[in-house]
C-alpha cells in the first residue's frame, strides 16, 4: 500500500472535503452566514455538529451577517478557542473590517472562501475578485486546485496559523463553482493521523481572569509604523513555515503541495503559464498535450498569494532558468491596471535588463469557463512573443468578441 492510499477514499465535493477537514481539526466554535457557493460546506458542518461527529465539542453560532460571523469567531479566538468560518464573494467583502482586526491582533482564525465574483454585475458564479480584493487584509491566502487539496490545505492552515511564531489568520480559497460543487475521489485521513499532525491549540494570547489581557487596542503615530513592520516580518517568517509544514505533512500523509508555488514540467520550459486555483488542473492537461507536440511549455501553480512567492518568481530571471516568456492567468482584475497576480509576478521579477518577457491574461470572470482551448491560445501568444511577434501586454481571453 502506498502512502497516498492511507485513509479512506471517498466521493466528495470540494465543500464536503473542506468540511471533513474542519471536522478532523475540531474547532470549538464555528460561526457563519450562508452564501452561495459556500453554503453546502456549512450545511455539512452543521450536520456534523448536530450528529456529534466533530472531533471536539463544537458550538455552531448562527449569526446575522458575515461581519458578525468574523466578529464572533474573533471573540471565541480571544478566549483561546480554535475557530472556523466560511464565506464567499459579498460575504467576504462584508467581513473586510473584521479581517483586519483579526490579523492585527494575531488570532489564528481559519476560513474557507468559496471564490465567487463580486457585484455588480450581480453574479453567483466563480472568479477570484473577492479574495484578491482582500489581499491587503493581513491574512495568509492559499488557493487550491482540487477537493483533496482543499482538505489538505485546511489541515495545514490550522497547523501554520497556530504556530507561536506565526499566529496569523489563514484564508483557504476554493474556486466556485468548479471545486466546491464538483465530486471527486478524496482521501480522508484518519483522526489519529490528524491529531499527530495538529496538536491541541494552546495560546497565551487570550483573555483570562488569572492573567488579564488588553486586546486589539490602538497604536498611535509613535509606534504604528513599527508595529506594521513587525506584522510584515511575521509574513517573512511564515514563508519558511509554510514550506516546512508542507514537508511535515508529506511525511505523514504522502501528499505535498510544495510551499508557496508548485511547478509542472518547468525543468526546461521556455513558455510558462502561472495560474491560481482550479485553472491549474486544466493547464496541466494542456501542458501535457503541447509537450507531446514537442513544445517546451510548463505550469506554475501559485498556491499562496500572501505571503507571495516573490523569491520563486525572481529565480525565473536567473541565467540558468530556461523560461523565456511568462504568462499570468488572472481570474480577477484591478480596474485601471491589470490582473493582481500579474502585477505581483512582474514586480517580483523586476530588475534592470530582465531577460523574461511577460503577458497578462484576464479570463474566467463571473463563471466564464477557462477552457483547454483558452489555455492553448495563451500558450500560443507566449510563443508569438518568444518569436518576436507583437502581442498586447494585457489581454482578455475567451471573449465572445475577440
Amino acid at each position, binding site marked *: 500500500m502506498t502512502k497516498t492510499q492511507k485513509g479512506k477514499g471517498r466521493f466528495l465535493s470540494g465543500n464536503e472535503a473542506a468540511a471533513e477537514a474542519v471536522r478532523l481539526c475540531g474547532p470549538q466554535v464555528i460561526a457563519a452566514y450562508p452564501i452561495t457557493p459556500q453554503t453546502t460546506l456549512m450545511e455539512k458542518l452543521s450536520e456534523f455538529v448536530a450528529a456529534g461527529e466533530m472531533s471536539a465539542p463544537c458550538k455552531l453560532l448562527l449569526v446575522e451577517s458575515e461581519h458578525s460571523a468574523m466578529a464572533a469567531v474573533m471573540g471565541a479566538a480571544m478566549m483561546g478557542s480554535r475557530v472556523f468560518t466560511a464565506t464567499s464573494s459579498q460575504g467576504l467583502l462584508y467581513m473586510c473590517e473584521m479581517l483586519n482586526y483579526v490579523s492585527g*491582533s494575531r488570532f489564528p482564525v481559519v476560513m474557507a472562501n468559496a471564490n465567487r465574483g463580486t457585484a455588480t454585475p450581480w453574479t453567483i458564479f466563480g472568479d477570484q475578485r473577492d479574495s484578491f480584493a482582500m489581499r491587503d487584509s493581513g491574512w495568509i491566502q492559499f488557493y487550491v486546485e482540487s477537493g483533496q487539496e482543499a482538505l489538505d490545505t485546511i489541515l495545514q492552515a490550522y497547523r501554520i496559523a497556530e504556530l507561536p511564531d506565526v499566529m496569523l489568520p489563514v484564508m483557504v480559497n476554493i474556486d466556485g463553482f468548479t471545486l466546491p460543487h464538483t465530486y471527486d475521489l478524496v482521501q480522508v485521513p484518519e483522526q489519529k493521523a490528524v491529531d499527530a499532525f495538529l496538536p491541541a491549540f494552546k495560546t497565551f494570547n487570550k483573555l483570562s481572569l488569572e492573567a488579564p*489581557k*488588553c486586546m486589539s487596542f*490602538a497604536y498611535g503615530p509613535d509606534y504604528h509604523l*513599527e508595529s506594521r513592520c513587525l*506584522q510584515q516580518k511575521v509574513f517573512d517568517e511564515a514563508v519558511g513555515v509554510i514550506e516546512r509544514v508542507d514537508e511535515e505533512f508529506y511525511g505523514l500523509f504522502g501528499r505535498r503541495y510544495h510551499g508557496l508555488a508548485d511547478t509542472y514540467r518547468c525543468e526546461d520550459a521556455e513558455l510558462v503559464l502561472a495560474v491560481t486555483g482550479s485553472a491549474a488542473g486544466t493547464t496541466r492537461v494542456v501542458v501535457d498535450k503541447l509537450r507531446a507536440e514537442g513544445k517546451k511549455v510548463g505550469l506554475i501553480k501559485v498556491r499562496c498569494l500572501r505571503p507571495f512567492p516573490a523569491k520563486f518568481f525572481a529565480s525565473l530571471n536567473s541565467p540558468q532558468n530556461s523560461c523565456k516568456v511568462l504568462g499570468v492567468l488572472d481570474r480577477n482584475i484591478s480596474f485601471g491596471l491589470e490582473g493582481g497576480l500579474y502585477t505581483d509576478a512582474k514586480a517580483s521579477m523586476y530588475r534592470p535588463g530582465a531577460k523574461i518577457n511577460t503577458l497578462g491574461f484576464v479570463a474566467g470572470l463571473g463563471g466564464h469557463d477557462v477552457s483547454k482551448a483558452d489555455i492553448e491560445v495563451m500558450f500560443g501568444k507566449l510563443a508569438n512573443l518568444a518569436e518576436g511577434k507583437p502581442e498586447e501586454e494585457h489581454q482578455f481571453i475567451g471573449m465572445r468578441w475577440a
Partner: protein
Amino acid sequence: MKPRLIRDFHFPARPEELAFGVCTDAGVLTTANSGWRVFRPVLDASKCIRCLFCWVYCPDGVIGKEEKDLTIDYDYCKGCGVCAHECPKKAISMVKEGE
C-alpha cells in the same frame, strides 16, 4: 499619581518590547495621550466631596481614588474635560497647558 492598575509608562526600547500583535498584558497602555491635551483638568481638593462622578465618567480611567484626595494621571489624560463638566461641585477646572 496613577491608578494602581496602570503600570508606569515607558517607551518600548526594542521591537521585542512591542505588544504581540495589538494584544498584551492588561494594565499596559501603549501610547501616552498627554500630547493631545490643550487644557488640563486641575482638581481643587477643598471643593471635592468624593462623589466619584469624575472617576466614573473619565473615558480613559485616569482618575485615581486610592489616595485621600483624588488623583489625575497626566500621562494618559487627553484633556477632554468630561470630568470638569460632570463635577457637581465645580471642583475641577480646565487650565490651558503652558499657563
